[in-house]
């Protein structure tokens, strides 16, 4: 007799579109998903446990490797937490450098997201265009701190390397170049019928669900909640700059796409202002004790990374190593909504939704 049964399909851990080593066990009825269980932990490296034996400066390279696509923001959250605990004043030039580097990193991270998202959807070319532009940013970082992906650039109290001469001019030149490119990309992709049909209305959720699930970043703002930590809980020099926070309304993949493209534009705006106000001289490190030993206490510092709210919770017992260091990773929290969104969708939409959440598995697993 003919019998139909559910197909159990393993998406990953090796799969071109899961953005890392990440697995979803999917039960299919034809092409429709009836159940989806994410399985993670393939990239768990025990950062938090390791941190208990390392002093704070030694933990900074580990933060790079968590969210390797936007390493500068990870650096910053750790360093910012320690500085707040110790009441260290960061000199202005260092803070400007940090902000410029973080915003450049935001642009780079969103470009990677854009390229890979479109690659998942099937268009091969935007991936290369995005990486071509990201190459410029990565070259800038290379000049600044010697590394292309894992920068280890920030230190408690400032930054490690000062900007070489001419670096700020290169950043300044990059901004109009990127703006022009963004227009080209908009014309290529954002109006494409096939693309719009693929992502409009897909993976929709409303505000209460988003807040309940603790989403952050573009995932939260796509539902219309105005919660951008650069605006809501300002840190660094963000209060000095004018920028808008793009908001969506429907909470589907299209809104998230538009918001992220807008965020690149806003980052370029911030960069323009920052480069214009960049102090021509100054120190790159504040007055920091030789051994960084925060006083006893605890702190939860959080900043807006390209993926959402990244937080660093430190419990210090007055030693050079943290007693407990926990990273609140946005990809980990944002991913929780995935099983809920996937039920009833087709396999193709799984890829679209997963790409729209914008995860980096290094961050999911920490």
């Amino acid at each position: 007799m003919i019998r139909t049964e559910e197909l159990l399909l393993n998406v990953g851990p090796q799969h071109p579109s899961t953005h890392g080593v990440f697995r979803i066990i999917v039960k299919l009825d034809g092409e429709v998903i009836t159940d989806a269980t994410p399985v993670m932990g393939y990239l768990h490296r025990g950062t938090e446990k390791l941190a208990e034996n390392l002093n704070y400066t030694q933990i900074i390279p580990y933060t790079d490797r968590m969210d390797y696509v936007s390493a500068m923001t990870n650096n910053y959250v750790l360093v910012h937490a320690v500085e707040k605990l110790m009441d260290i004043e960061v000199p202005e030039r260092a803070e400007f450098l940090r902000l410029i580097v973080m915003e450049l990193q935001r642009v780079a991270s969103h470009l990677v997201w854009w390229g890979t998202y479109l690659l998942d959807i099937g268009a091969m070319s935007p991936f290369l265009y995005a990486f071509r532009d990201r190459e410029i940013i990565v070259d800038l970082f290379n000049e600044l701190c010697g590394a292309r992906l894992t920068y280890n650039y920030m230190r408690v109290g400032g930054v490690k390397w000062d900007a070489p001469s001419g670096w700020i001019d290169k950043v300044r030149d990059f901004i109009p170049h990127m703006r022009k490119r963004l227009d080209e990309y908009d014309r290529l992709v954002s109006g494409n019928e096939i693309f719009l049909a693929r992502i409009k209305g897909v993976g929709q959720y409303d505000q209460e669900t988003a807040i309940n699930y603790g989403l952050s970043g573009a995932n939260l703002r796509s539902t219309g909640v105005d919660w951008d930590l650069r605006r809501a809980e300002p840190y660094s020099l963000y209060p000095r700059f004018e920028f808008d926070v793009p908001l969506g309304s429907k909470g589907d993949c299209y809104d998230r796409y538009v918001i992220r493209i807008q965020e690149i534009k806003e980052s370029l705006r911030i960069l323009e202002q920052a480069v214009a106000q960049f102090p021509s001289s100054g120190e790159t490190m504040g007055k920091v004790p030789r051994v960084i030993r925060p006083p006893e206490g605890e702190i939860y510092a959080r900043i807006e990374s390209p993926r959402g709210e990244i937080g660093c919770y430190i419990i210090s017992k007055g030693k050079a190593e943290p007693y407990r260091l926990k990273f609140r990773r946005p990809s980990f929290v944002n991913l929780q909504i995935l099983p809920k969104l996937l039920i009833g969708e087709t396999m193709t939409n799984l890829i679209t939704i997963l790409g729209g959440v914008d995860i980096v598995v290094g961050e999911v697993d920490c």
Partner: protein
Amino acid sequence: MNELIQQTFTWQNGLIFLGWGIVFLFIVLGFVTYAIYFERKVIGWMQYRHGPTRLGPFGMFQTIADIFKLLIKEDTIPKKADRALFILAPVIAYVPAFAVLATIPYTSTLGFADLNVGLLYYAALSSISTIGIVLAGWASNNKYSLLGGMRSAAQMISYEIPLVLSVVGIIMMNGSLSLRTIVEGQGSNFWEWNLFPQIVGFMVFVIAAVSELNRTPFDLPEAESELVAGYHVEYSGFRFAFFMLAEYVYVFAISALTTVLFLGGWHPPLAALDVIPGLLWFVLKFSFCVFFLFWLRATLPRIRVDQLMSLGWKVLLPIALANIFVTAVCLEIFSK
């Protein structure tokens, strides 16, 4: 060639056919080799990179090296795969691709067989490849390839219909299914080609053709980012080469068919340019069609499977039917 076919079938005639067939096979293989190279170059340029440059002058020997690599690879068959079907599937996918090339008229004198049901022969044979793909999906014992094979079956069946219906208008205009007659019915100037009277049919035909080829934007059966190469994921080495070969020979076939049906075959765009041999015009138009397919691949994202089906059934099919209707009406009115 035609006279040979009319004669009785002797050993000598058979060997001549076989010889010409082999010659043509090599021509097609040469085309496939350089079509792959051309595709990589074109897509590379569109993506702001060079494409193959190392092997040979301008990287021209790259495909030869790739094919050689595929041929010397280990022939792996998954343990639980259905051996006979696994081995048979690439053959079934490839043979019709090559067989349909027989009916296409390359110039007014050059051609293999001028069947008076040439177009029907083409449509019929090209559907047999679908069986090959479904078999590949099933025999691989792999859920991803099964999904790919199923998708492919649904897709190809759905798009076969608009494909054939879109050319019914041409058939009505020429009163014949024979491809040679269709080309002869088109004039020597580009406005006399079937392109303009049948512009709607042309658009439907192009979309349906891209879908029949399983090429982007309709490449769901082999969607790399979702199904990890879909129905040919378990194939490696020579058998994989067969699938690739089948795909590119179909590119040849569809482009040749487009040229013959809509773009005037061997006719020059302007009557004055008659001095240039017809074969060259055929090759130029044909190359443009091939280039267009590669261009689409570099640019467009992939369409989703349910959207694909609704496009095929709800959009293309009604348009093709409307085209037939309008053509019939116009023929009635304007031929009186």
